[in-house]
């Protein structure tokens, strides 16, 4: 960790090197460690320190980007020169207007010293306790315990300077019995808030309960989807539906639907990078403050997220959802929330006459973007529900179903929510468990 002042100096140094009309510097620094375990023992255990400086230069309407991880003055100069050389050969982008101007950015506390200083011994102790618990119950433990500290800063020649430090701790586990397995996960900015004991109990309980599974016939079922499965659905909505680029390119169901009902009345979804109960990041990769964006309110389509290019295309302002330049993916909702419901999670099963309990989804892929038609498998804890109770474990099933359709048939939402960390984007999700009807299963695995 370099700290705010050193990074400010470094970004100013880069801005001073550039002769471009506008210049932007994005700094990211990460110290991360991950302890991985399988067969109830640590088998991979790694740590990494890395930095990246990403320079975007603007000459007229021509833009070039270069990045490097070497912080010496010579290397920084080289990045600036490469970005310039690229811009000189670039074609004009007629849509480009300007890099964003400074706006006030709210400070959000997301850095926990304890997490940043968490040692390999501390991680090993947590993992060891978890593995011992598994062995005592006759199951095999696998999983990963990650702790990381990161700093992100964005500066540009128009006066933007935004800096944010954050930490993440996440623990995931799959417990395996001879013919069954159980999954559990948890994330928090504070590593000491991770309750490994409870996590182990949950996964071990599932592994034992899911032994000797039998086949359930494919078909339409009512499903109880736990938080990890709901997270997968939110990820696809974020990527396929809630981005202004997806709407502009006519591949999102949100297109032309503002103010209309698109989901069940009990569904409220929003994005909020400033919330205290997410892994906060108060600005985006252009240094624009993140706004809280209501996406779906009581089932009614309310909004989508924008970055500067997609906002300018519609004469709007960015909502602070840009990814790092150059970005062809468009804006992305990184801090999605789904509002909790009224039902305690342990009572959700009561009104299900016949259905399937799903712990998590696996290998989900898009078949058609508009209806968010997805195929995937269930994994690590799939059970048949009959007359309000779990009656038996079942073999993992393949589903091919529209997530949008599923969010139009939600009959119960849990009162409790869970926070998860998304590795690829560094974002976070907070969501409840749900019960929805008409979920289409199309196959069974062996």
């Amino acid at each position, binding site marked *: 960790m370099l700290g705010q002042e050193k990074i400010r100096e470094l970004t100013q140094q880069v801005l001073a090197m550039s002769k471009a009309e506008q210049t932007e510097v994005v700094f990211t620094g990460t110290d991360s460690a*991950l302890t991985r375990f399988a067969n109830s023992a640590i088998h991979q*255990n790694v740590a990494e320190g890395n930095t990246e400086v990403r320079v975007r230069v603007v000459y007229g309407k021509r833009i070039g980007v270069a*990045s490097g991880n*070497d912080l010496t003055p010579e290397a920084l100069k080289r990045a600036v020169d490469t970005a310039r050389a690229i811009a000189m050969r*670039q074609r004009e*982008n007629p849509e480009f207007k300007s890099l964003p101007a400074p706006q006030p950015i709210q400070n959000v506390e997301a850095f926990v010293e304890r997490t940043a200083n968490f040692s390999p011994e501390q991680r090993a102790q947590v993992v060891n306790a978890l593995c011992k618990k598994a062995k005592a119950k006759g199951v095999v433990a696998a999983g990963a315990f990650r702790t990381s500290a990161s700093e992100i800063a964005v500066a540009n020649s128009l006066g933007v300077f935004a800096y944010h430090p954050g930490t993440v701790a996440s623990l995931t586990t799959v417990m395996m019995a001879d013919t069954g397995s159980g999954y559990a996960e948890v994330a928090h900015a504070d590593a000491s808030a991770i309750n490994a004991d409870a996590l182990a109990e949950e996964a071990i309980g599932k592994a034992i309960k899911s032994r000797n599974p039998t086949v359930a016939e494919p078909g339409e079922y009512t499903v109880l989807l736990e938080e990890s499965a709901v997270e997968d659905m939110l990820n696809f909505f974020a990527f396929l539906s809630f981005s202004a680029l997806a709407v502009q390119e006519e591949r999102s169901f949100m297109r032309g639907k503002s103010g209309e009902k698109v989901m069940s009345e009990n569904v409220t979804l929003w994005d909020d990078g400033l919330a205290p109960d997410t892994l906060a990041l108060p600005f985006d990769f252009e240094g624009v403050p993140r706004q809280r964006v209501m996406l779906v309110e009581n089932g009614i389509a309310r909004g989508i997220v924008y970055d500067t290019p997609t906002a300018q295309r519609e004469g709007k302002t960015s909502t602070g959802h840009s990814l790092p330049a*150059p970005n062809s993916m468009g804006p992305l909702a990184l801090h999605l929330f789904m509002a909790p419901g009224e039902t305690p999670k342990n009572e959700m099963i009561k009104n299900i006459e016949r259905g399937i309990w799903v712990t998590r989804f696996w*290998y989900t892929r898009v078949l058609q973007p508009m209806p968010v038609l997805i195929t995937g498998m269930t994994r690590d804890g799939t059970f048949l529900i009959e007359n309000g109770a779990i009656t038996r474990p079942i073999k993992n099933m393949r589903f091919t179903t529209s997530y949008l359709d599923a969010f139009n048939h939600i009959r119960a939402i849990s009162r409790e929510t869970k926070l998860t960390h998304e590795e690829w984007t560094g974002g976070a999700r907070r969501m409840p468990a749900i019960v929805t009807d008409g979920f289409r299963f199309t196959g069974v695995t062996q």
Partner: protein
Amino acid sequence: MKDLTGRALNIAQVRGASYADVRIVERVTQHVAVKNGKVEALEQEESLGFGVRVLVNGAWGFAAGSRLEPKDVERVVTQAVAIARASALCKGRDVNLGAKIESKGVYETPIKINPFTISLDEKIGLLLKADAEMRRVKGVKVARGDLTFVRENKQFASTEGAEVKQEIVECGCGIVAMATDPATGDVQVRSYPNAGGRHQQARGYEFILEQKLAENAGRVAEDAVALLRADQCPSYDAMTILLDGSQMALQIHESCGHPIELDRVLGSEAAYAGTSFLTPDKLNKFRYGSDLVNITADATIPGGLGTFGWDDEGVPAQKSDIVKNGLFVGYLMSRESAHELRLGASNGTMRADGWNRMPIIRMTNVSLLPGTWNLDDLVADMDDGIWMETNRSWSIDDKRLNFQVGTEMAWEIKGGKKTRMLKNATYTGITPEFWNSCDAISNEKSWVVWGTPNCGKGQPSQVAHTGHGASPARFRNVRVGVVK
């Protein structure tokens, strides 16, 4: 650099490591992307650093740093040793690497034209031309094209005396046309030369020129628009299908390449990527596919993304049999896993995604060897079937058994001829049943070394570039569409 590796290995031994290796890796990536007539991305990324892997008390530790100053080397090596000591607090069997590896030498990807000497103007021009060709077709909503160039210089040294230096160069390219019908909500895409618009090989710029993007752009765009009006692919319980080469490459990657990774088999990926149905009791006994099916893992194929001099444990590149006349006969192995199962020496498949990742078992070039059929004869030999081209989606369970695949475009084949175009074609199956239903593979004339530059595995996540030689092949009694 030799100073750095020597110093790192020395510190590791002084601190108590029984084995250590160090890799210094510098990777330069250039990316050019064009979308709807505009240059959307033009960037160059450089990343330099080193990673140290140590064995202490029979357990692994790994640490990596981006600064190469002597004090940083000392700090990172010390960290790796501390991590290994922590691993030993909760270890399984002591790690045994088997026989020593003392490789020495230099390897460079053979290239004709160095892609980093080609001007950005030329690269942009090539994509803009293809882009214009695509957008000339009425009904195309989004046209995009990509070029990717990678140069990786890496140095590996170990306390066993191995010392190798490699330069790997890759070139990748592709175009995609997307057509939409807002009235029906239909979205159709067509890619060339490979799914998602990226084919890649370990070759020079000559590879890009051979792909003739602009010459193929019009056809690709017309296909995308035609798909909007095409009939929906019907569902069948049992149908004959013919898969094109790029789709076969993916079928091999997902249903053979991953389940033969010995670390998955031994449970290392159980909590994440998953395990494998190809358990050790099946080795040399299990009928994976029909007699026609011969699959090899070969890190020496010219142009393959899994082609190199040595893997990231210093083990030389080699070719080994995976499936022979339908019988499952081999795994992708590391030193540790090969020794654990007493399967002899490693066949050299450990690779790391850059300096900041620990090597794990990765596919090299896992290929289906060509059969005897001319592709035209193969089509003519089909009374009633479906030809499917270019992957659109892929999903498989965590043991690699139940898969479902979507393709971009399909054709009905009746009486040995392609008749009507079909959209949204999917097929589904169980891995060994599927491969046992293979009854024809086309010959070397249609055999291509496809590149998969986006294979994800491991925690923290790693992306590997793998190669797959494949030609079109036919399968009987396959479930097509989503039947109740």
